[in-house]
């Protein structure tokens, strides 16, 4: 069972919000003594997901949680937006697929960089992406 040790929420509405958000995630990761490589992977994954949120949904909200399971602590990030949603999730998870002329690495890359990854999307209503990175994961 996953226990939530602390909760924090941030709204992202413009590109300049991304740097403070990354710094906030970093603070929590340092607090739970996550190693530098895992910190970098987590923040990079977060950066990809927050960009998607800005690009496709004009922003949204991010829940930052410190979680623990067994003897492991980690960071769980929940990105929720009220954007157009994703029509075909398996396609969106493919490397190199993009509807916005980008590299198409955002979703699949974020998944590879995280320990747990889930995505729920309803066409026309929005998308929620949840990632977990364990401090020793």
């Amino acid at each position, binding site marked *: 069972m996953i226990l939530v040790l602390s909760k924090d929420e941030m709204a992202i509405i413009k*590109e300049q919000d*991304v740097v403070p958000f990354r710094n906030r995630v970093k603070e929590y990761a340092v607090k739970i003594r996550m190693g530098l490589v895992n910190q970098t*992977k987590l*923040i990079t994954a977060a950066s990809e997901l927050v960009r998607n949120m800005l690009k496709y949904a004009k922003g949204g909200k991010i829940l930052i949680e410190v979680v623990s399971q067994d003897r492991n602590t980690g960071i769980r990030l929940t990105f929720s937006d009220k954007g157009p949603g994703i029509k075909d999730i398996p396609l969106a998870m493919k*490397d190199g697929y993009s509807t916005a002329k*980008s590299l198409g*690495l955002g979703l699949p*890359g974020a998944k590879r960089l995280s320990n747990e990854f889930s995505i729920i999307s309803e066409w026309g209503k929005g998308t929620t992406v949840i990632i977990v990175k364990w401090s020793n994961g």
Partner: protein
Amino acid sequence: MDKIPILRMGRFLLVTIQVDLYDGLALTLEADLIKMVDKIGAKGVLIDISAVSIVDSFMGRIIGNIASMSRIMDAQTVVVGMQPAVAITLIELGLPLKGVRTALDVEKGMALLQAMNITESSEETTNDQ
């Protein structure tokens, strides 16, 4: 609007990124650098990212773009000082930065640029004869 300074050293341009990049800033840097390459007829661009703790797919693409654009404009690009954690993350992300030359630090990067230019100019001389 924020800007990243571009320093000129002879026919080379030196950029040290000291802040965390957001997308707009990276795009401005790309445009400014290419303009400068054209303006001074630069032969090399050295980008120091030793203070950058995050390179995601967008910034990786900008770095690749700068390298390809400079090459078309007859300048070589060398990226130096990448942190090990950033290198590990880039590969896992799926962005191996193909076609971008790298060196461990500014000194080695400069040496690489100079070496590339010497080979290039000696080739020119041989062609002239």
